[in-house]
């Protein structure tokens, strides 16, 4: 891992407008991603964790420009990625790829594996057409599949095999950054480990950088170098894996960690686990969005939004750690 920053996102917001009525009046926004600032270093795996609906996928899709950010800037290797449009964006896309959660929906059911894996080369007109099949076989073997699979359809594969095909497609254009959106949550536990190991091997081999989205903290702990915790569209804590898992600081992170069953710890931490529903991202609570569920809330929490702060790359957005009071 180097210190080179590959992706630098500043104050990224993604609001989905809610339109109602015959004239589609704009009546509000789903604030799926609300003011996220994040840097990703070359060669690392940055974990993105949070409860369902907190905006992890939306953030991932915004970073890769599947969605246009409502506000904020995204720099990829020092180049403004938000300003890119049309053809320029299309050509730049090959540097960032994505692996999706559902391996069943990720492959066009009407195309053979060969057609699917030839597509990246066809799109960017790379390699002689006659060379592409050879390349596809190489890709298949790289991800642990057989050459004989090339002429089969996706429905003939298991979930784990399909995810391997998706991985092969994602690495075909030799991207530098891959966003993995819950790549193993649809798979059996035994298969999960195989896929995670494959991703790790590929990372070493091709010097890949991952943004790894998951709601499963044990997977994150196994896989990531740094972890960002999201709550209701915002990052509430970010730090290296070891620090974050050893000394979680934000009450939300503490509650999440307490929910992981650990051998030998019995039930003693259960009391800190989360209660209540995730509030709606349309009307988030005032101040710190977590305050209605927080066991350690103080007066200011419901009044003012805490900012990410901290040293040594371990930052949290929580009033408990702010020295000065406003």
């Amino acid at each position, binding site marked *: 891992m180097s210190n080179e920053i590959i992706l630098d996102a500043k104050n990224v917001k993604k609001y989905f407008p809610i339109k109602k009525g015959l004239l589609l009046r704009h009546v509000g926004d789903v604030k799926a991603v609300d003011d996220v600032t994040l840097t990703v270093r070359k060669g690392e795996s940055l974990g993105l964790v949070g409860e369902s609906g907190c905006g992890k996928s939306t953030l991932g899709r915004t970073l890769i420009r*599947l969605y246009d950010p409502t506000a904020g800037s995204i720099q990829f290797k020092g180049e403004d990625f938000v300003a890119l449009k049309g053809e320029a964006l*299309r050509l*730049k896309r090959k540097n960032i790829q994505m692996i999706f959660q559902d391996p069943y929906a990720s492959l066009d059911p*009407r195309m053979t594996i060969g057609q699917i894996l030839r597509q990246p080369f066809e*799109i960017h007109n790379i*390699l002689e057409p006659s060379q592409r099949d050879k390349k596809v076989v190489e*890709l298949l073997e790289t991800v642990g599949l057989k050459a004989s699979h090339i002429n089969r359809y996706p429905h003939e594969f298991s979930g784990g095999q399909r995810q391997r095909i998706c991985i092969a497609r994602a690495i075909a254009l030799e991207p530098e950054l891959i966003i993995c959106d819950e790549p193993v949550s649809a798979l059996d536990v035994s298969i999960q480990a195989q896929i995670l190991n494959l991703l790790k091997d590929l990372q070493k081999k091709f010097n890949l950088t991952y943004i790894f989205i998951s709601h499963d903290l044990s997977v994150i702990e196994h896989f990531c170098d740094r972890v960002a915790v999201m709550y209701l569209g915002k990052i509430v804590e970010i730090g290296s894996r070891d620090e974050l898992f050893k000394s979680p600081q934000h009450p939300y992170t503490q509650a999440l960690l307490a929910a992981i069953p650990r051998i030998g710890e019995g039930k003693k931490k259960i009391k800190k686990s989360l209660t209540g529903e995730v509030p709606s991202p349309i009307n988030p609570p005032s101040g710190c969005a977590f305050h209605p569920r927080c066991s350690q809330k103080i007066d200011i929490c419901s009044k003012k939004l805490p900012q990410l702060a901290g040293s040594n790359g371990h930052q949290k957005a929580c009033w408990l750690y702010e020295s000065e009071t406003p």
Partner: protein
Amino acid sequence: MAIPQTNESSLTQGQINQLEKATPFWKIIFNQFIEHKMAVAGSIVILIFVIIALGADIISSITGLDPQKQNVSARYLAPFSTSEFSMDMKENEIEKWSEKNPELAVELSNFIKEKSLFSATDGQNPLIGFGTQDVSVVTAAIASENSASINSFKELTKTFTTKHWFGTDEVGRDVLIRLIYGTRVSMGVGVMVAIASALIGLLVGSVAGFYGGRIDTALMRITDALLSLPLVPVLIVLAAVDLQKLPAIKALMRPDNESIVKMFIILCFFSWMTVARLVRGSILSLREREFVLAAKTLGAKDSTIIIKHMFPNVIAPMLVAISLGVGNSILFEAALSFLGLGIMPPTASWGNMLNNAQEVIYKNMWLTILPGIMILLTTISFNFVGDGLQDAVDPKSIRR
């Protein structure tokens, strides 16, 4: 761009070429389809009807049956009976024959007088008097004779009788040939309406699905509004509208196909909505499907995404909708024609044949049953085919 440094492949190009070939997707669909026995039976019925419809003119010229030819002396004949021309018609035909072959006519007249085959009253042409008797009498009288004139006359008398396999209708027209021509009209209208409305639906649905927003809302409200109209009363009102007043449509119409064109337009106008909703729904869901997003992150152009991913995934449900739509259109056409508002006589359609038969439903039941069977058979067949296609094109149900 550099080629990714993956492992060197363990296979050579030659070996790759020898790998088991992919089954093309249409073949997978076909194999699935033929497992659906009823759908196969349906396709065979449809195929037979299509051949009959296309070959109607040929059948007509071979059998000498004419769907418009009336014979008041042979109304409501039962199936498998034989009709004979009336005296007037025979007289007409004989006169025509004599004009065409004057020598033969003179020769035959002399022959009749000579053999006193017919005792003519004053002023009566013996030839006509002889010829207009019952065909059986005439043929018996000249059966053993053999001369140019008699042979020619024998040919003529043969055309005086017609075998009606399915009987005749209220003006003595042959029901079989009318059913055959009716197949052409009813299936033609049904298929054309289904295809045309599928195309309209595809256009509306894809515009709504792709652009979204206001356009989508506007188009879908129109669709909903049309869907919520009570169809039969509206069709009845529209069928009474005189399309001849519209100049653009007038150009398309000849007097003999006016009611067909009108039927086509009306039915198209009311049957595109299902397809439009289907296409819009598919496109909206496809847009968010991961494989489309993956193509986008690979840098695929919009056109590539539409042609390679959207179109093949939309066309399959559309085919299903078309085949189900044909059955519906045939039913609607029949219903309107039955009410006397659809295809106008003398053009035959199954619906107006039913209409004509409704007064004699107890006396001459076959007149209602036969078109009814045709309607039932085609509608069921198209529905089975639609069903079979639905199973066959669903990627989830694909087995090997």
